[in-house]
């Protein structure tokens, strides 16, 4: 049976997140959270393909214990299994160290056909982790995947965005794909799906389970050093026009102020 592995990240729901003054990284515990939107497109691509090819869909997330919520959500949508990669040793990992952990998890899971990532996470905006995992595993990859056309034997035929163009590509499996939002939305979840997800096990692995040296991952092993994090200053002025007496009057004021 084929196996598709989908990677999902828990990210802050609000754009107003606190930054740790020492590590300069996001204080994830201080924010409301959600599943990274692009990762849900990746999950949708895997579930859609499973319908045509049959496959086991494994959802994987790396993060604190609270990241179990994104895996429960993936199970609710229909993933077959879920694995949480969680350890204090992983905390503060940059994209390189994260890709080390994820690649180790893929090796531990075993045979696979396609790795599905979201195009990028909304909290870091790097779009690096998926390509780096492909690099660690030495497998081909497609970035900005907008739709999967078909699977022909060991070949995946897909469309990817290239600027304003769409490229039809063929890629040999096992491979990694980074899915963009053009691939489409998941169907709305249901209560019965939620109930099923609550009964399923979420497997937890730490560095020992992955046979990783804890010193090669985490904040201090990360080659990326964040020197400072600042909110960009803007000279833009906000003018409130909401106190006009009618919509037409507010629009007139808006046009006047722009002209």
């Amino acid at each position: 049976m084929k196996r598709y592995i989908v990677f999902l990240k828990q990210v802050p729901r609000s754009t107003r997140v606190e930054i740790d003054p020492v590590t300069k990284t996001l204080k994830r515990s201080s924010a409301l959270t959600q599943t990274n939107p692009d990762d849900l497109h990746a999950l949708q691509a895997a579930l859609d393909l499973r319908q045509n090819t049959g496959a086991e869909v494994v959802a994987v997330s790396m993060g604190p214990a609270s990241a179990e919520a994104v895996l429960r959500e993936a199970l609710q949508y229909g993933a077959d299994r879920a694995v949480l990669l969680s350890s204090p040793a992983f905390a503060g990992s940059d994209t390189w160290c994260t890709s080390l952990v994820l690649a180790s998890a893929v090796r531990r899971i075993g045979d696979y056909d396609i790795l599905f990532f979201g195009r990028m996470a909304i909290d870091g905006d790097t779009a690096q982790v998926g390509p780096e995992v492909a690099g660690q595993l030495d497998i081909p990859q497609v970035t900005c995947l907008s739709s999967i056309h078909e699977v022909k034997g060991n070949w995946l035929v897909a469309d990817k965005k290239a600027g304003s163009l769409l490229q039809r590509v063929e890629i040999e499996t096992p491979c990694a794909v980074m899915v963009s939002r053009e691939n489409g939305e998941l169907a709305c979840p249901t209560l019965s799906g939620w109930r099923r997800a609550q009964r399923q096990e979420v497997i937890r692995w730490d560095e020992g389970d992955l046979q990783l040296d804890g010193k090669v991952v985490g904040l201090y092993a990360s080659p990326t050093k964040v020197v400072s994090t600042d909110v960009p200053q803007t000279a833009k002025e906000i003018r409130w026009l909401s106190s006009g007496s009618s919509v037409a009057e507010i629009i007139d004021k808006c046009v006047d102020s722009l002209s």
Partner: protein
Amino acid sequence: MENRFDIIIIGGGLLGCATAYQLAKRKAGRILLLDGNEIASQASARAACLLTRARTKPGLMEIVQETYDCIAEMEDLLGESLELQQCGSVTIASSEVSLKGLEALEEAATRFGIPNERISREQTRKLLPWIDAEAVDVALYMPTDAFIDSALLCSGYARAASKLGVELRPNCKVKEILVENGRQVSGVRLFNGEVLSASLVVNAAGAWANLLMRPLNVGLPFTPVRSHFWITAIDSERFPAGHPFTVIPDARAFTRSDVGALIIGLRESCCQAFDPSALTERLEDFDFNQAAKWTVLDECAPLLKRYLHDIDDLPIAHYMAGPSCYVPDAMFVIGPVKRYEGLFTVTGCCGGGVAAGGGMGRLAAEMITGERPFVSPELFAPERFGEVNPFSPEFQRRCADARSNKKGG
């Protein structure tokens, strides 16, 4: 003179804006309305939007009627529609207890002149294509009930008030209510340090109102309690736009149409109160407990299942939670705070701010301007529970129970 007003209203939600409108109609002087965020952007934008006319508690039908009157007035004043959706309502009884409630509602509606009729299962099925009508023992149809977009209604009050001269200042957060000589309210201080003077301050800050009262050693008798509803995926055939909203006490539920989807409101058996001091400045940043989206639906679905058999497999597109300000007796809080001269409050919507806002604003305005009140103000007196501590878990539990035990829409 620029910072000197006759009345300062704190809170740009439904109650603050409706009070501003009603005061402006009465030419009550130079009025300023402040909100820490955008007008109509917080709890008032998270309402289920029902305008249920028939009520069994005293004074409430008059208050709701006033809201309907305000909507018509404001549409004239603003020259635009506020998009009231007169869809009608159906109250459903499937037990002895709920039948008694329905009969009381029927009697109240008839007494007040609200059109109502009992309808057959066949008629119920026709009006509500999604319902399993076999579960319905008695259905009471009120064709003149309506719903309205709560944010549009709230901004309607604000814009009408503005047209009548009220100054609106969104994004101005009040730090404290100022008092002179230990007794006379003199104005407010903003977080930016600016002092605005007025001899009368109306605290209509909703869920945040008790935070402003705390330094004055005043506890208003309410606390924010989580209200929430679920919106299904669009299925226009089954949930046609504009079909009547329902109140189903036996399922602790209401429903209403939402452009081809169905809004489902449910009350859990033990509602969740929040300590006001835990509230964030903006509700977007507040954790209403994300897990409740499914845990509460899981708890309540079995009751609704007899009316909506496939609730377990219905695609759920959205979930909306917000704070409703509940009072132990589920009645509003409107009136002067007697410990201070010039301090007034309009709050404690008990989940009825959309339906009752216009009337609550009218009662507040009449009391402030010395007019004869159109409903008895004693019912809503802030001090009717004696001294309360809204920050105590025991009091918050009493407020949450008021929602848990609610029967109507």
